[in-house]
């Protein structure tokens, strides 16, 4: 029997940046072990939602709640969210010149694992396994974090971090965009390694393509800062064939009806 109490929940979330409202009452609820996909046209607020979940200081939450395992996420600093097991794979990972991938990953691992952290040798062993799994060159760990990385390398780096940190809930912000099919397969393989009964995943994407490799239990469609439509995997096919216009239409009628 599966536990049907929400694992991760967003309630009537409103958020703005530079005074401009972006999210206008987002509702979303996930049960433990599920994978959800969030799709929507450009400018609908997908990346804003990802950043707000992680606590980016440039976004101001004006109303609503985010609950993870019963904790009030909005009251936590970004590092506390990471320590609680929340992870965001960034759409545009930034470079930190002079800081090696290995040093960074060890610091991040130590910061998120408290007493369960590994000694350097065990850590390195695990890191090499992950690198092999993600089909990355060994020299990767001595390079500076995202410095001079190609788009594909940056995305693999995000997944490598995810495997290293072992979060219990992850948001992937358009990890698939700009990836060729081989890179996409590797990224998906990495993500699927984590999915399981104790892991929640929210895949934010612009294209259905990634959903052929990472299979969502539910799909949400974000339009103009609100979840306009939710449904099962069958929605993916409908979107693929018909685009977003029908959602807009139906959603518009619903708004008018209220």
């Amino acid at each position, binding site marked *: 029997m599966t536990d049907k109490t929400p694992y991760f929940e967003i309630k009537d979330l409103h958020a703005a940046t530079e005074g401009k409202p972006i999210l206008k009452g987002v509702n979303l609820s996930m049960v433990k072990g599920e994978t959800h996909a969030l799709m929507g046209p450009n400018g609908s607020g997908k990346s804003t939602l990802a950043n707000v979940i*992680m*606590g*980016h*200081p*440039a976004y101001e939450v004006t109303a609503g709640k985010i609950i993870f395992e019963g904790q009030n996420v909005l009251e936590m*600093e*970004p*590092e506390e*969210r*990471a*320590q609680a097991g929340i*992870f*965001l794979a*960034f759409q545009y*990972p*930034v470079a*930190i*010149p*002079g*800081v090696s991938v290995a040093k*960074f990953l060890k*610091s*991040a691992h130590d*910061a*998120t694992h408290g007493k369960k952290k590994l000694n350097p040798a065990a850590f390195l062993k695990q890191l090499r396994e992950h690198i092999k799994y993600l089909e990355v060159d060994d020299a990767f760990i001595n390079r*500076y*974090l995202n410095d001079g990385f190609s788009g594909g390398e940056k995305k693999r780096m995000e997944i490598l*971090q995810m495997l290293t*940190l072992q979060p219990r809930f992850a948001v992937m912000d358009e990890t698939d965009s700009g990836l060729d099919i081989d890179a996409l397969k590797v990224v998906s393989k990495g993500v699927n390694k984590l999915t399981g009964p104790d892991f929640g995943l929210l895949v934010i994407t612009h294209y259905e393509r990634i959903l052929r490799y990472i299979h969502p239990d539910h799909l949400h469609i974000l339009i103009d800062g609100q979840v306009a439509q939710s449904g099962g995997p069958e929605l993916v096919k409908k979107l693929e064939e018909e685009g977003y216009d029908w959602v807009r239409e139906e959603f518009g009628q619903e708004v008018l009806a209220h």
Partner: protein
Amino acid sequence: MSTESTAILDDYKYGFYTDIETDSVPKGLNEEVIALISGKKGEPEWMLEWRLKAYRWWLRQQEPKWAHLDYPPVDFQDICYYSAPKKKGEQPDEIDAELAAAFERLGVPLQERNHLAGVAVDAVFDSVSVATTHRETLAEKGIIFCSISEAIREHPELVKKYLGTVVPYTDNYYASLNSAVFTDGSFCYIPKGIRCPMDLSTYFRINALDTGQFERTLIIAEEGAYVSYLEGCTAPMRDRNQLHAAVVELIALDDAEIKYATVQNWYAGDKQGKGGIYNFVTKRGHCRGERSKISWTQVEAGSAITWKYPSVILEGDYSSGAFYSVAVTTNKMQADTGTKMIHIGNHTKSTIVSKGISAGDSVNSYRGLVQVLPDAYHCRNYSNCDSMLIGSTCSANTFPYIESENHTAVVEHEATTSRVSEDQIFYLRSRGLSEEDAVSMVVNGFAREVFKQLPLEFSVEAIKLLEMKLEGSIG
């Protein structure tokens, strides 16, 4: 102790004062004071004459104003030019217990049983050298490592031959002043073909109030010799500015190599800019011999005012010079620092890597000259000057001067200015790092190229120092 002073002490843990009886000369500067200093040190006549020539030259000079620094004029008559802790013990070599305790607190043990392994230390307290460790071990190899005062008395032929040959007393205002009144400093001589078996180090401590420190260091590496030298400096916290005007001369003969590293953490003044050390330093190396090498590595983290350009004169063919610098300014600190690389010999090479980090209301300037003389063929220079800004009220400047007069020279200059971005900090925090750890990681990454030039323990210290300095500068 009040909470306020505890908080200040947390910021600058070297801010303590040692209450010790001193032997000082009256404040002010004139020929009698210079004669008095020279007399106290038991110097020969030629030394006093050199000092007086320097003093007379200095009187005719104007204080330089070209640096990007703003500070009230220094009253040279309101400074005490000599202050030495009084010897209490019977034995001439005995170290006073209070002095030893003071250095112990600074992490520099002087008693034989506690000596730092692998590092010989010369400890300078105000105007005098109080102890030099590991001397016997070094003497076996013919290496001379002692205070400059002792060298003037014991090795006058070497001092006479080299003193003032890299930085003459006519060189600049502060170098002239130093030549007139210099009190102590270190002297190192590495004989032909000898690789110095340990790092040599000098620890400078200003203790007395209203006292200037004018140290003079002279390092000579004979043909094929090698030495790595480390310098550290601290001072008590006072709300009045104190003057530090040092001169360091390095001489490298054929195939010799000198590596000189400094971690400068003089008291920088409080948050409002009150107090702190005025640091006017002339450091210059002379690659006199062919294939000789000199490198300067500096971590400049203290002082209210820094005016410092460690330079290399590349005279010997195929000689090379390097300058690696991290300069951190916070609060109201001002730094104008950089280097000069003068290419005289053919096939000479120089490398400049400067990383400026500014926070608070500070001003951090890089000023550097790369000069290739008309007769110097096939010279190369590579310069990289990066500035990082933390917050929005600090500033960074780069003043590169390139004077290449030979068409075969290859001179490259790169400069960047960046801000520690909110996105970088957020990225690291989203991986579980605290805001302070995130800033420190970004800054250490930025300065990494320079830190890796330092001996390992020194580089660990330097990283800690940087973290301490930048604590609370973001947000």
